[in-house]
């Protein structure tokens, strides 16, 4: 039945019948895949746009590395520029990206399950990362020191480390970047590339053990669920747990439990 319908294809140029499997019209000679050719010719400009976006990200992140004395002002300035860039690129491709802001097949149970798994994974990763950093770099990782002096330091830390990346990194990497990549490569490759770029921009080679799998999972989830929202929640709770453990280290929590 399906074959019968396909065999009734008409040439876009001369409207004569074109049989199944015929690549050119035998009446007028025009190629039957000109739409695909047009799509292919747009791939290089899309790659250039992705390159521009990533260059801006690199520029912002290296600026942050070049600043010797970090303050909340510089941190928020750089975050602000990166956030604006993410929004501009995302909304510039609004016709392609708007659909991923919808939430088809929303499920509270699925969301709660994912959040629970994320919190557990984050506890495990924080524990492993702490030990790995001590082993490889002989130093501890901590987020709070830059926020500590401020009256609302804890809240600012949550906003800067949990809320901001959850929204803007997801809009940038699983949103804009992945959507643009999907117009160049297939879904699998889009997941790989967006995850590797997400890992690379964090400037931490050792994070290959957790950041890359985390990004691959978020990419896979974004493709599978066709929405950005699960990723935003997972990213938020992953980072929030890490912040929480920075304020209340696991050893202290264990100590409290065992004392009682």
């Amino acid at each position, binding site marked *: 039945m399906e074959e019968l319908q396909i065999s009734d294809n008409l040439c876009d140029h001369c409207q004569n019948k074109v049989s199944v499997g015929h690549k050119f019209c035998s009446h007028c000679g025009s*190629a039957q895949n000109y739409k695909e*050719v047009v799509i292919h010719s747009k791939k290089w400009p899309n790659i250039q746009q992705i390159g521009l976006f990533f260059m801006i990200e*690199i520029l912002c992140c290296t600026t942050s590395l070049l600043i010797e004395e970090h303050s909340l002002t510089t941190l928020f300035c750089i975050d602000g520029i990166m956030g604006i860039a993410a929004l501009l690129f995302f909304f510039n491709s609004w016709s392609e990206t708007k659909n991923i802001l919808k939430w088809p097949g929303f499920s509270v149970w699925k969301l709660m399950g994912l959040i629970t798994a994320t919190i557990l994974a984050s506890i495990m990763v924080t524990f492993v990362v702490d030990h790995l950093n001590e082993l490889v770099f002989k130093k501890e990782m901590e987020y709070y020191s830059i926020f500590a002096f401020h009256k609302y330091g804890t809240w600012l830390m949550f906003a800067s480390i949990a809320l901001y990346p959850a929204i803007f990194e997801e809009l940038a990497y699983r949103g804009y970047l992945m959507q643009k990549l999907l117009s160049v490569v297939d879904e699998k490759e889009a997941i790989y590339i967006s995850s590797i770029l997400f890992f690379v921009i964090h400037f931490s*080679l050792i994070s*290959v053990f957790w950041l890359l799998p985390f990004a691959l999972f978020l990419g896979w989830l974004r493709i599978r669920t066709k929405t950005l929202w699960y990723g935003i929640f997972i990213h938020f709770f992953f980072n929030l747990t890490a912040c929480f453990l920075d304020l209340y280290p696991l050893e202290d929590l264990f100590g409290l439990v065992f004392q009682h």
Partner: protein
Amino acid sequence: MENQSDSLCNSCYRPFVPSDTYCNNCGFPFQGTKEEKDHHIANRTVKEIDLSDLNRSVESACNSLYWIAGINAVSAIFIFFTAAPEDQFTLLIMNVILVGAFLAFGVLGKTKPITAMVSGLSLYVIIQILNLIADPTTIFKGIIFKVLIIVYLVKGIRAVLEADKIKKELNIE
């Protein structure tokens, strides 16, 4: 059912039926003038040569990922033996990850060239930037090699896309 014919297209050598004005596989004008037929064959040949050149560019670009891995491995051995003992373990871990990553990208390049080259290029650029921040003089060390690698990879990415476009235009898989 199509009529079977012993006639073969002059351009792609696929069979065709006498009622066809154009070849349904390559678009060759059976009833065109000699000039039109020659133009079609010449155009197709040029595109096939372009495709072959582009495939070579892609191969070279993918091989450059192995070159990066090799150069990194050699410099890592040198750095390992000249570094302070307390830094040796950290450097070893970092370089094993880097060499492993570029080797993996090289292997991936055989099946997924765009993923391999985009990832390899971004990682390579980031490493050069981090080296530059740590020690600005490193930018001049092997500058020609660095520029060549970046040019090769960018050209490689473009070549993959161009080759795909030509395949679509020629209607070949």
